[in-house]
């Protein structure tokens, strides 16, 4: 056996986005030896792209806000499929997590009293998003990165070694988790730079690898989003939930073709941008669904007044949850009322002065000017839906973030449950902080409880992964497949057949195509050597994309209703009996997946009491309402 570079840690955090960094900070603060592993450079994770803000009910702008209101908004946004305990913890703890960032050096925009300013966002009842212009994700990443540097400076002073207790392994990809019996024992990966393999011994792994958007052709996501964490967890024996729910953000750029999918932040609408079709009509007024009828303005005049007088007016329907807006845009375009390049118009130039726009939306102004020759201070943007976020992910315990596998934790976009069937804007950044911290904390407690008896890595397992990984480099012969072609075909398939509106026939044909792609994938071959070879990296990532795409399609076929980020053409309504069901996926033989139906955790009576009866009627079954009524009256 060849010797492999080998490291030993207490806690291994895979992912250096908001969730991973916050988890690592916590594990290190608990005194454990922590490693952070990331596919890209330190400070470049996907979180850097987040624009609008982090939701936290601090009540700085409207003192009526509280965790209870935030909790209700989150449940409504997720159409009551959320894990209620996660939604509760998130709403309660996010203010502390945001304030903590200030102690690390973050500089949020301020209110006149000098507090953290908060902005409006779709689905949030009050101005709730802490932000820095439209580059909040950058602030979050840089702040956490700098906090880690500061801990390394402390360790340098104390131990003479900056990396004594926390080290970042950048441009290092993990390709398999290792287990000893039922418990995590480590992870195996490779250095992108050299192509050399590296082995980590660790009793606890926190997965914080983000999402899956790169399986779709039109997406706001970066190349990192190949669903690695989802697939690693599945193969290690953990389960995924809610995989049918994918958020298509309503406003991605649609032109020029090469930037199709790049995000146009929701802040544009939060700050007053309106959506119009080719006839100049504010079409969103025609798309307010029954469940939201009482919360949104029904006339343009009222919607307009809300920007200056939110106490006495209702918000405009441009600020409905994302799934509603995305479907509405989709319908307008299908009905032939789209913009020249197949989107609709988003205009902010009529409500704000050019100076205000440049101040409040600097990166949007920059992005459109540089990439599309559009001056958003003077003309409307053309926008359309783009694959943005996966609500589904690793099934975890709400309090500890542990998966079904001992020693395996998950936080951030890779975990499931918190957002139900649809995530509200701004609820991800706060999710990363709240559950990143919890995952780090509980991973540390587990390791401490373990003492010195740690699960061991098996040499045979390591050898098997090594052989698998090296195979595409050695594959020869005529009958081989190019990873770039397979990837392009997969993206096309998912985009067209398991996209924003799903049909039974199309999803079934996607599953058939996935079978074919999986078969062809066994013949994948790459040219070139091992040092920084993107073709080889893609070949390895493809296995994860194929597996995760299969999970999405399998669950999408099973759920015969429409809810949040899952719309079935033949079943356009929300069905209260489906609300009680989570679709749980597990790995099966030969790259296949098993699907199981499990009950959604019930909502505690005290939490249920936060909603009024009339609203609950829209979501719950009659039996549930009856029990809820009994409990409330007791």
């Amino acid at each position, binding site marked *: 056996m060849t010797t492999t570079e080998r490291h030993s840690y207490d806690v291994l955090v895979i992912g250096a986005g908001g969730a991973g960094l916050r988890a690592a900070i916590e594990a290190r603060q608990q005194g454990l030896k922590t490693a952070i592993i990331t596919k*890209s*450079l330190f*400070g*470049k994770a*996907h979180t*850097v792209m987040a624009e609008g803000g982090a939701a936290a009910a601090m009540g700085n702008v409207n003192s009526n806000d509280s965790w209870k209101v935030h909790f209700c908004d989150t449940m409504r946004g997720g159409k009551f499929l959320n894990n209620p305990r996660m939604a509760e913890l998130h709403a309660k703890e996010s203010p*502390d997590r945001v*304030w903590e960032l200030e*102690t*690390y*050096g973050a*500089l*949020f*925009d*301020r209110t006149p009293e*000098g*507090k953290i*300013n908060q902005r409006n966002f779709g689905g949030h009842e009050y101005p709730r998003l802490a932000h*820095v*212009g439209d*580059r909040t*994700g*950058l*602030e979050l990443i*840089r702040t956490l990165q*700098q*906090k880690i*540097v*500061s801990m*390394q*400076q402390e360790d340098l002073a104390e131990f003479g070694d*900056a990396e004594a207790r926390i080290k970042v392994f950048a441009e290092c990809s993990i390709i398999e988790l290792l287990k000893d019996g039922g418990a995590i024992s480590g992870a195996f990966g490779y250095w992108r*730079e050299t192509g050399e393999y590296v082995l980590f011994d660790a009793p606890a792994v926190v997965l914080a690898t983000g999402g899956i958007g790169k399986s779709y052709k039109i997406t706001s996501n*970066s*190349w*990192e989003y190949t669903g690695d964490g989802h697939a690693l967890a599945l193969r290690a024996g953990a389960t995924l939930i809610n995989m049918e729910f994918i958020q298509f953000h309503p406003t991605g750029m649609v*032109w*020029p*073709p*090469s*930037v199709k999918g*790049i*995000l146009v932040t929701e802040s544009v609408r939060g700050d007053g941008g309106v959506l119009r079709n080719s006839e100049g009509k504010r079409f969103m007024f025609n798309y307010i669904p029954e469940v939201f009828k009482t919360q949104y303005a029904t006339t343009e005049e009222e919607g307009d007044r809300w920007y200056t007088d939110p106490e006495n007016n209702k918000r405009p329907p441009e600020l409905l949850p994302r799934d509603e807006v995305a479907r509405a845009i989709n319908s307008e375009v299908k009905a032939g009322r789209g913009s020249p390049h197949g989107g609709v118009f988003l205009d902010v130039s009529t409500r704000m002065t050019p100076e205000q726009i440049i101040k409040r939306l600097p*990166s949007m102004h920059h*992005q459109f000017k*540089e*990439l599309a020759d559009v001056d958003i201070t003077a003309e409307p943007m053309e926008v359309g839906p783009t694959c943005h976020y996966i609500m589904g992910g690793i099934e975890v315990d709400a309090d500890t973030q542990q998966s079904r596998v001992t020693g395996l934790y998950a936080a951030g976009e890779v975990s499931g449950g918190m957002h139900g069937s649809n995530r509200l804007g701004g609820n991800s950044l706060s999710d990363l902080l709240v559950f990143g911290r919890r995952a780090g904390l509980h991973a540390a407690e587990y390791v401490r409880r373990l003492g010195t008896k740690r699960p061991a890595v098996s040499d045979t397992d390591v050898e098997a992964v090594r052989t698998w990984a090296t195979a595409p480099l050695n594959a020869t012969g005529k009958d081989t497949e*190019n*990873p*770039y072609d397979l990837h*392009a075909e997969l993206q096309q398939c998912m985009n067209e057949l398991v996209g924003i509106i799903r049909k039974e026939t199309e999803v079934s044909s996607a599953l058939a195509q996935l079978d074919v792609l999986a078969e062809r994938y066994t013949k994948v071959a*790459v*040219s*070139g050597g091992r*040092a*920084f*070879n*993107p*073709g*080889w990296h893609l070949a390895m990532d493809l296995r994860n994309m194929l597996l995760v795409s299969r999970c999405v399609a399998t669950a999408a076929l099973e759920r015969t209703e429409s809810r949040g980020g899952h719309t079935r053409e033949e079943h356009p309504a929300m069905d209260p009996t489906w609300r009680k069901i989570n679709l749980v996926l597990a790995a099966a033989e030969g790259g296949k997946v098993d699907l199981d139906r499990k009950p959604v955790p019930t909502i505690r009576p005290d939490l249920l009491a936060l909603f009024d009866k009339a609203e609950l009627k829209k979501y719950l079954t009659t039996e549930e309402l009856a029990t809820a009524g009994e409990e409330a009256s007791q």
Partner: protein
Amino acid sequence: MSYEAHFRVWRGDIDGGALHDFTVEVNEGEVVLDIIHRIQATQAPDLAVRWNCKAGKCGSCSAEINGWPRLMCMTRMSIFSPEEIITITPLRTFPVIRDLVTDVSFNFKKAQAVPSFTPPKELQPGEYRMQQVDVERSQEFRKCIECFLCQTVCHVIRDHEENKPSFAGPRFLMRIAELDMHPLDVADRKDLAQDEHGLGYCNITKCCTEVCPEHIKITDNALIPMKERVMTRKYDPLIWLGRKIARRS
């Protein structure tokens, strides 16, 4: 409108390399990174290049395009004429790893050497109060996406390996300025800026400002004010005396 463009891309590693010619399709609205990706997908699958967001937000795709440091994802093909030969080389100031990927660890080491944000000890989370006007100065510098284009262009280290140990580069001198201007930071990094991080090497040529994709006024708003702060301190007898006394006690 599509056309065939002529690209020359540097390929090689630390032991050497050369420019390789590629003729490749270009479509309307594309950026240089799209073309590099097309070369990868159709002609050179192992062409090494760093990128993440393809939206100018992560600062990964830095390279030198016709000798000018730029983000490949924010450089539109329409700024070139179809006949033009477009040459792409890796950042010159850092050691090459492979093709367009360089070893930028210099920057992470410099980042580690800047003492972190230090708030007043007694200040509790949630009690931070700062005015918008006061945070704006540092906020400008926090727009930095760490693309290191300013670092590669600065003549102090561009062709002067020997200056690297004593010069942090514009990005990290700006980080010191950012902390110095943070309304609630209580640490003093002025001597350090001058003595350890080489603020004195900067002769305000403003090349860094010119290449910054975030349009941060690095020289005018960070480096020059920082120089002024260091100078006032050095020549102000009262400050000088104050420091002496503080050191003694």
